[in-house]
């Protein structure tokens, strides 16, 4: 974890929020699942940075969505190209960018069973900028080959696929996805962590530069934004998270 010997002046969550917010620059419509507080906060930060050009949809929230056509509307929007960025995760993520939301072992009678693939087998193909986020970077989650492909990292030429993974952000580091090679490229390692630790905790091979940068710390003005204007807003869809990170409760309606 990020308990470095010298206090960094920001929390692990704030760092990850700012890393993801940079990946969302220029996206007109960012959609987020309801149980994703760090990506959700990053989306709200991206909107605060460029309010006139950024729209955020937080699924199942009361105030952060403009949807009224039932459970199909988000998927219809994605299929039409109305959503610029979305977040996915996986119980397993492999070095080709394949994600597994179904379980471990041989399907169907698996030794570990998760909930299921949800919308991934459409959204991963059609949303231009999918950001993979997983707050647990271990050999359990970052594997050489997933046991079940809920949705693949890339598709053969000739398959309609305007979207796909752009990046993988974890509690240790940030990777860029190389679409041509179908592999991850290490972009930066978060403060307080080392390449040795990343190699030790990653079950797949990845590309890396000769010198690996330290992840840029949160920009001071963005930290201030998060702590002052945004925390109360984030507390609406993510009350437990906002309470834990900023000791704040949702604004009374």
């Amino acid at each position, binding site marked *: 974890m990020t308990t470095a010997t010298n206090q960094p002046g920001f929390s692990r969550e704030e760092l990850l929020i700012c890393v993801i917010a940079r990946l969302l620059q220029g996206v007109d419509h960012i959609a987020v699942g309801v*149980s994703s507080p760090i990506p959700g906060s990053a989306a709200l930060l991206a909107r605060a940075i460029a309010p006139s050009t950024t729209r955020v949809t937080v699924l199942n929230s009361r105030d952060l969505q403009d949807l009224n056509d*039932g*459970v*199909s509307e988000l*998927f219809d929007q994605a299929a039409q190209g109305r959503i610029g960025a979305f977040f996915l995760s996986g119980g397993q993520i492999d070095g080709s960018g394949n994600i597994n939301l179904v379980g471990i072992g041989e399907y169907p009678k698996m030794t570990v069973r998760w909930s299921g*693939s949800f919308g991934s087998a459409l959204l*991963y193909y059609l949303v231009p900028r999918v950001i993979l986020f997983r707050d647990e970077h271990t050999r359990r989650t970052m594997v050489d080959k997933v046991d079940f492909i*809920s949705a*693949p990292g890339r598709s053969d030429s000739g398959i309609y696929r305007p979207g796909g993974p752009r990046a993988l952000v974890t509690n240790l580091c940030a990777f860029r996805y190389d679409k041509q090679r179908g592999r991850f490229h290490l972009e930066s390692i978060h403060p307080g962590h080392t390449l040795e630790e990343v190699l030790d905790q990653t079950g797949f091979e990845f590309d890396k530069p000769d010198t690996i940068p330290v992840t840029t710390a949160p920009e001071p003005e963005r930290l201030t934004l998060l702590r002052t204007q945004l925390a109360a807003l984030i507390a609406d869809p993510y009350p437990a998270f906002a309470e834990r990170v900023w000791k704040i409760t949702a604004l009374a309606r």
Partner: protein
Amino acid sequence: MSTTDLDALAARIPDGSRVAIPTSRHGVAMQATHALINRRVRDLHLVAVPTAGLQVDLLIGAGCVKTVESAGITLDEHGQAPRFVAAVKAGTINVLDTTCPALISAIQAGEKGIPFMPMRGLLGSDLLTHRRDYRVIDNPMASSGDPIVLLPAIVPDFALFHAPLADCHGNVWIGKARELMTMAHAARQTLVSVEEIIDTNLLHDELRSPATIPAPYISAVSVCEQGAWPLPLPDRYAADNDELCRYVLAGKTDSGFIDYLNKQHKPPSLSIAATA
């Protein structure tokens, strides 16, 4: 319109029926589900539109389910659905895994009376590998190539859900949970429990009519206050998280689950009213 009680509603669903059910936050007929369990229904084929949770877990644990078709079975912030996971590991249920938009599109095909619906995505996914009923063709509208997945239409024997209100003519108001309309259009029969029945005609109300399922689609209505409890009903009540926590603990073991099932399942507010 005549209403029916929950036991009579549940009695309409024979063993082996294919039943479409909504996602946990859009009005699950939980009290009707207990009535189904009490009548010891067997071999249900549940179609989650497109995900489900507590309702499916209870039915699986009670031995009522043969097949579950869904894009996700979860108790949301309360974690994994324990009886679903146990049944998958034991191999005692068939699981037809898919993705949310595929289920919705297949139900829409059922609604339209057409044999299938094409859908983007899915190619290269193991979901497709394991779904023998899905087909891949080349898009006939393209000049060449362009593979696309075809999903067979789903025509459920029943749609079963809980809604805020019905009127005295049998029309049912669903609010923004639009897929309930699609389910009712697609299913051969639709069974609904509602919080209350009002003395008006919802179809004559310009504001509420677009979110109202007309009576001819509805086979039976039961009045059941807090009928989705402990799950939420939009704009009426939130989830009862204390009760869901109790379930998560109980569902961890076979014996805990049986004990939970044998208890009286009434929302706390109604229990208080009944004893007052």
